[in-house]
């Protein structure tokens, strides 16, 4: 291992330009992927934020028994899809409407709005079908006058989310594939640049494993350095967007580590494949 580390350092020292080129290529490939990831993450967060506003509002008939409403709220709160149930009194509804309508606050008179039960659903239960199904169940209570949940809006939101997921997956796969191909080609160049050395190593009796190890270490180190550089570039890009254009969320530490690990893995696998192919060919 000590010898392999030394050989790795020698390789970096001997071909500084090629090593820098490899790291830069890895960095920019992962940067492109990172930018895409950042856009995907922000779209996802925005959609999740909008989604969390999906709610069912069940209007209660005038004069409904308070005990019946309270019992029903207990039942509804126990539905597996339901996250939160609140009772909105006619006064609270009026207050809210006046706030939302601002200058037209005078149009409402006392007692014009009915009381209601406001139901928020758990994440994962906000698709149109589930919302419709839960709304139907709530409508079943006899003291419920009407149930609203912005059906059209929920459906549109769900469609946007599905399209974003599919496009995100396709683009993500494409970006990752391009990154892997470019990185593998760069590593292959590094291996070919040292083919003479590999041939000499074999002549003096080095085993394939011995020859491979410094290349794997080199690929790993290049991958980690490239990953770190990509993370830095992505962070700079995100900071600029955040400062000059729109509020942007950056990767959390787990996602950042996953990114660097991806770089390391691509470097390692790229090297293993390139040097393996080369060893089989000679």
């Amino acid at each position, binding site marked *: 291992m000590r010898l392999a580390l030394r050989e790795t350092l020698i390789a970096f020292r001997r071909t500084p330009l090629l090593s820098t080129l490899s790291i830069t290529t890895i960095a920019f490939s992962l940067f492109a992927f990172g930018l895409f990831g950042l856009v995907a993450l922000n779209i996802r967060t925005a959609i999740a934020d909008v989604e969390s506003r999906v709610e069912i509002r069940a209007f209660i008939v005038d004069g409904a028994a308070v005990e019946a409403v309270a019992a029903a709220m207990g039942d509804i709160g126990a539905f597996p899809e339901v996250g939160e149930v609140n009772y909105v009194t006619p006064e609270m509804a009026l207050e809210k409407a006046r706030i939302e309508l601002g200058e037209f606050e005078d149009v409402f008179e006392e007692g014009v709005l009915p009381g209601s039960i406001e139901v928020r659903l758990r994440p994962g239960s906000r698709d149109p079908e589930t919302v419709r199904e839960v709304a139907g169940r709530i409508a079943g209570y006899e003291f419920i006058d009407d149930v609203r949940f912005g059906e059209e809006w929920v459906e549109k939101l769900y469609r946007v989310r599905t399209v974003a997921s599919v496009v995100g997956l396709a683009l993500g796969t494409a970006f990752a594939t391009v990154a892997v191909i470019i990185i593998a080609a760069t590593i292959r160049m590094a291996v070919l640049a040292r083919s003479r050395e590999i041939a000499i190593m074999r002549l*003096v*009796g080095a085993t394939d494993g011995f020859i491979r190890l410094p290349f794997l270490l080199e690929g790993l180190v290049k991958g980690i350095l490239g990953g770190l550089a990509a993370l830095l570039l992505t962070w700079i890009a995100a900071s600029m967007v955040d400062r000059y254009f729109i509020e942007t969320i950056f990767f959390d530490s787990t996602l950042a580590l996953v990114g660097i690990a991806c770089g390391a893995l691509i470097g390692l696998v790229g090297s293993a494949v390139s040097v393996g192919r080369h060893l089989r060919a000679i």
Partner: protein
Amino acid sequence: MIRYFNVTKEYARSGIALKDVSLRVAKGEFVFLTGPSGSGKSTMLKLAYLAELPTEGEVQVSGVSTTEIRRGDIARLRRKLGIVFQDFRLLEDRTAEANIAFALEVTGAPRASIQPKVSRLLAQVGLASKGSSYPRELSGGEQQRVAIARALVNDPFVLIADEPTGNLDERATRGVYQLLRDINASGTAVVMATHNLELIRRADYRTIELDRGSVVFDSADASLPRREAR
């Protein structure tokens, strides 16, 4: 030691390089391998250090047969062979010492044993004061001496030399040749491919001549017509 049994080697692109060759190189022997370019000399040597495997027939090196050898065994077997080329094949960015040490390091030799052995070998090839020189700072003859020292580092039973004097002037050729003779005198077999008929004529070593992939003359084989090496 090295035995060829009815060996035929055919390359996909260039066709047949060796045709039904059978011969044996004995322990401690010095053998010249000669013949025109393309006659199969290098292929014979490549088969001996297992850079190639025969298309037909069998080669045995130190009792290991090409019919049953695995890829992993080849590296270990090569440590028992010393290989020298016309173009030296030294690592340009390492000193003479480091080039020789490298061949020991890949075998996992203990660190403490490497430096004394390298110094001894440098002295043996007459380059005791050039250990810290890089190949580009050495003459052709000196580079070949470093390559020979590297080849000897694992105490091989045979030194396989493919045109080792092909790139050298007459003076360097004599020096390298003498070094190979000394190595042979100490018990290591030497198989040397060469075009240099002067060297062959000057010594009374076994000479094998190849032509278009066949052995046309072997001074040790009474069944083949005896003649002067051409």
